[in-house]
């Protein structure tokens, strides 16, 4: 057993855990004050629910010993994590439980990302049920495709997805559109984010945790982990700066929310590429992420869809750019395969069709799940008009974000 690799995977798991609260504040700052608690809770209780699902059957479906449907999904061999060794066997660098733990944190943040699409109007209890089903029917299979021996990853098409550009970001982005379409537009979307410092706090925690996300995806404390962290930093910083400067050119001001969003877009885009590119590739990917996602946000605002916090524009589009860019900027000495910059176009094509497959699968199945939940009496996706007017904090949680009231 290698104590150094173990130390890093422990740390990386904790860091990825911290991302979901970070996301909670990132999203929370962007809504209106009367739904701030609800927005935070959508992420926070996702931690609770997905951990239970993952322990009981989620991990097994993604990484089980066999496959219920070959190349598609795992089996029930590891239900309740029974049958996984607690202690490392001879020759194993780390006990297999580290994988349960690390992957659990990924399974948690993915549905939490989706919530950005439907904040300020989604029924909280329906969301909890949705999460259970979505992790089972969408997340677990897609994770299996990429990392569990399915059709996309190393044992399949050979797509490069170091830390989950497809599994997490394209997946969440596609589900976000399905949700935004079905839940409908906010009645009164408000003018400005309620709390810009929270947006920046959340983005900072996300960025901090992303070092565990990408660095930890090396699954060891080695040169890959260091390179992953370095390129993560470079891409995020570049995208943040580019977003700020593009905004400056077109509006005359640099928006804090914009720079934070740019950072997240850069982090999304570098996610699949973090094990394949070097510093200059990361600069290019970050540059592209800042530019492309900026205009994706602008464009999607012109549609009738109300993806409230631009989940698709940032995670979907950013994830797609990242997946393709991985094929473009992959360096053989790091990735093991040549990218377009080294003269080989084939990897780009693999990246595109695997990303596309994920996008379509996630969109279709998410749409069906939500459509059915909407029709079930007593559930339904949307809160009542009066709850929406009152704000979801009072209506769904009996709470107000802040109270500074003499009468209190």
């Amino acid at each position: 057993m290698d104590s150094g690799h173990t130390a890093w995977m422990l740390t990386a798991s904790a860091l990825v855990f911290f991302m979901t609260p970070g996301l909670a504040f990132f999203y929370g700052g962007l809504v209106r004050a009367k739904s701030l608690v609800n927005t935070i809770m959508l992420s926070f209780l996702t931690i609770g629910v997905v951990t239970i699902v993952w322990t009981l059957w989620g991990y097994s479906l993604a990484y089980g010993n066999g496959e219920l449907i070959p190349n598609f999904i795992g089996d029930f061999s590891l239900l309740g994590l029974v049958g996984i060794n607690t202690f490392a066997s001879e020759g194993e660098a780390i006990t297999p439980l580290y994988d349960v733990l690390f992957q659990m944190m990924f399974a948690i943040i993915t549905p939490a990302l989706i919530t950005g699409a439907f904040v300020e109007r989604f029924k909280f209890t329906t969301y909890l049920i949705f999460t259970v089903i979505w992790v089972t029917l969408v997340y677990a299979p897609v994770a299996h495709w990429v990392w569990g021996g399915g059709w996309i990853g190393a044992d399949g098409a050979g797509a490069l997805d170091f830390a989950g550009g497809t599994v997490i970001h394209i997946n969440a982005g596609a589900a976000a559109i399905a949700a935004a379409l079905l839940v409908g537009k906010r009645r009164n979307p408000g003018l400005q984010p309620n709390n810009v410092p929270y947006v920046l706090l959340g983005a900072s925690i996300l960025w901090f945790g992303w070092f565990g996300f990408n660095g930890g995806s090396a699954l060891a404390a080695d040169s890959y982990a260091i390179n992953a962290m370095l390129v993560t930093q470079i891409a995020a910083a570049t995208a943040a700066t580019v977003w700020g400067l593009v905004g400056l050119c077109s509006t005359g001001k640099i928006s804090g929310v914009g720079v934070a969003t740019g950072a997240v877009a850069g982090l999304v885009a570098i996610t699949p590429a973090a094990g394949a590119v070097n510093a200059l590739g990361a600069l290019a990917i970050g540059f592209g992420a800042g530019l492309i996602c900026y205009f994706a946000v602008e464009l999607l605002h012109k549609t009738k869809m109300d993806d409230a916090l631009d989940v698709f524009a940032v995670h979907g589009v950013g994830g797609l750019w990242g997946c393709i860019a991985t094929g473009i900027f992959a360096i053989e000495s790091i990735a093991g395969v040549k990218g377009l910059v080294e003269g080989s176009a084939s990897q780009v094509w693999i990246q595109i069709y695997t990303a596309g497959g994920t996008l379509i699968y996630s969109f279709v199945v998410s749409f069906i799940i939500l459509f059915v939940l909407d029709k079930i009496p007593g559930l339904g996706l949307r809160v009542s008009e009066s709850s929406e007017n009152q704000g979801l904090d009072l209506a769904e949680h009996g709470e107000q974000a802040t109270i500074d009231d003499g009468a209190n």
Partner: protein
Amino acid sequence: MIRIDAVIRPERVNLVLDAMSEAGCTGFTYSNVSGRGTQEGVEVFTGRGSSTANRVSLPKVLITTVTEKSKQQKVIDSIISSAKTSESGDIGDGKIFISEITEVIRVRTGETGNKAI
């Protein structure tokens, strides 16, 4: 007794309060409000730092003071001179409203009228 409500720029509050004190006001109550007048509003980002919109209401401060009628003109003059940002005045410098108060009572002593101000 009269009540003077002045809506002014936030950054002027201290100056205005001091001027009013000098003009003879002994008490004030103030709070942050949003205001919309002939002033134009301000360009704000609406979402992710890509599109902007005009926020028509601006942060203002409302100062309320109750005082004897005899001091009215002096107090108003003090507000005007301290709240104005330039010689000629700028849009958004504020507005003053005067109304009548029928009674004032000091909770502590139960005193009423001018004594209670």
